[in-house]
């Protein structure tokens, strides 16, 4: 038995048993954050808060949702929406949250790309973050199946068909994933399991890893400046707050985070109460019908860019292009050959690369929503080819980049 002194307070009692003082220092009061950052650095905590809200709204939806092809549609559109007290609130919060979480993920990713926050010791932050992006994508897709409307069914049909591997014709694999020849009851219940249990578990694990990978290299700053954290921490602790380049995560940085969150939640609840249809596709208010394809199938806005990369090519080439587009962002820290950690505006050609990539992703997103006809096909094809051209160009232009 270890020796324990009598504690004089609850705090001391907990500290003896859990080392809460050390924990508080490591994770809050002596977790140093650079001062030279802007509101874009708050997106991580905005995402964490959104994930919390998705979890809470999900718990209430889970109490009335029925994962059965005969009951699912009515349990959502009748029971939850009209009978359950404030059921509509949870559904709209869940729908808007699922959509906005991707908006913030994209801002978070592009911020990291712009400021070079993925290299020189920060590679694992990028990789675990991309893992989160993939896990959130799977979570969004599996959740989209649950209301069992027309878009749920046909998105399930099209996405699971991707696993046939084109000319490989691996229909056995597709039927295995579905547990049926077409999306049916087995399909719905297994995606329900993934959505409410396995994938959230993976996401929580990845969030812990993502935070962990950040702790040692520390957060990047607006200039990519390297400095001695120990030295500046001492300055701060000695009361020379102005001279120090750092602030503690909690309570100083967190108060900035909370301010940005406040602004974000105004937008969030504005959408929930006044524009909830933004996350509700009208086609999905028709129950799933395996004998009738909706006239025009498209995914939610956040998957449109990669969907558009699939579309303009022949089947096999499209699948290969789609598969590469899904994973190519993982390779960013290794394809960027420049040692500079600096904002894109100071990195020569990389500045143009960054903005071209942003424009290309936006063009792909718009083309993915438009019907596959005429000029839209051509623009879609050019934008898809440009996406790959940019990735091929990246190692070359970053190799040529002057060291700052």
């Amino acid at each position: 038995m270890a020796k324990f002194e009598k504690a004089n307070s609850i705090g001391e009692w907990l500290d003896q048993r859990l080392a809460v003082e050390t924990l508080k220092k490591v994770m809050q009061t002596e977790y140093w954050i650079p001062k030279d950052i802007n509101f874009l650095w708050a997106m991580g905590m905005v995402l964490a808060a959104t994930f919390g809200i998705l979890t809470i709204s999900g718990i209430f939806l889970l109490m009335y949702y029925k994962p059965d092809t005969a009951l699912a549609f009515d349990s959502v559109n009748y029971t939850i929406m009209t009978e359950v007290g404030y059921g509509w609130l949870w559904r709209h919060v869940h729908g808007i949250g699922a959509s906005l979480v991707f908006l913030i993920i994209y801002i978070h990713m592009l911020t990291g790309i712009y400021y070079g926050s993925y290299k020189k010791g920060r590679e694992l932050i990028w990789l675990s973050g991309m893992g989160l992006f993939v896990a959130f994508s799977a979570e969004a897709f599996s959740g989209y199946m649950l209301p069992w409307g027309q878009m749920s069914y046909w998105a399930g049909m099209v996405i699971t068909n991707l696993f046939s591997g084109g000319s490989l014709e691996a229909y056995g694999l597709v039927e295995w994933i579905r547990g049926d020849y077409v999306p049916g009851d087995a399909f719905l219940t297994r995606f329900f399991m993934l959505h409410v249990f396995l994938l959230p578990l993976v996401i929580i694990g990845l969030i812990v890893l993502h935070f962990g990978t950040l702790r040692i290299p520390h957060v990047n700053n607006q200039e990519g400046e390297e400095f001695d954290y120990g030295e500046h921490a001492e300055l701060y602790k000695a009361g020379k707050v102005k001279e120090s380049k750092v602030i503690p995560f909690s309570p100083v940085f967190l108060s900035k985070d909370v301010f940005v969150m406040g602004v974000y939640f105004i937008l969030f609840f504005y959408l929930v109460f006044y524009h909830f249809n933004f996350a509700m596709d009208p086609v999905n208010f028709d129950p799933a019908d395996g004998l009738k394809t909706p006239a025009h199938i498209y995914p939610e806005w956040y998957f449109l860019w990669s969907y558009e990369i699939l579309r303009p090519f022949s089947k096999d080439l499209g699948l290969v292009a789609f598969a590469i587009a899904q994973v190519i962002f993982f390779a960013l820290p290794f394809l960027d050959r420049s040692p500079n950690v600096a904002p894109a505006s100071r990195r020569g050609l990389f500045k143009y690369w960054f903005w071209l990539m942003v424009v290309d992703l936006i063009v792909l997103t718009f083309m993915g929503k438009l019907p596959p006809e005429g000029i839209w096909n051509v623009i879609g094809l050019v934008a898809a080819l440009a996406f790959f051209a940019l990735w091929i160009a990246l190692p070359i232009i970053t190799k040529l980049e002057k060291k700052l």
Partner: protein
Amino acid sequence: MGKDVKGRRDFMGMALGGFTALGGIGALYAMKRSWDPLPSVKAAGFTTVDLSGAKENVLNVEKWRGKPIFVLKKTKDMKADDRDVVVGSDRYHVSIGLCTHLGCIPAYKPQKQIFLCACHGGEFDASGHETFGPPPSPLEVPPFKVDGQKLVLGEAGPEYKKMLDAGLTV
């Protein structure tokens, strides 16, 4: 640590690891089997289609194993095809009504006599051959057997086996 102690610990470690791996493989197999389609799903029976009421150039959509089945009675001036199902003096186009690109259901346009897929713009002619867009192969023919004026889906009759052997469908 003595040499014999290390040897014994290595042995214990390998024995434990070996049995754990064995159990793990067994569990993985059980998990794989649990994801398999259920026997009741696989046995989802046969569908019989009565062709006597079929009208020329009007598409009938039947359901077999949850999938739509196209049955199109061809007019006399529509091109004959090796994949047509011949019943008496009539020719029928019979196929699984899922686009071979990604599985959407193409719509039949009777004026143009084509199947048009709304998802990615693929087109098939009235015999199910791909004519435009991303579909890589013709619409598939389901296993069928001609029984008088009836068509039994799910059972491979001699006409179907002939098509299969000739590589006209998969």
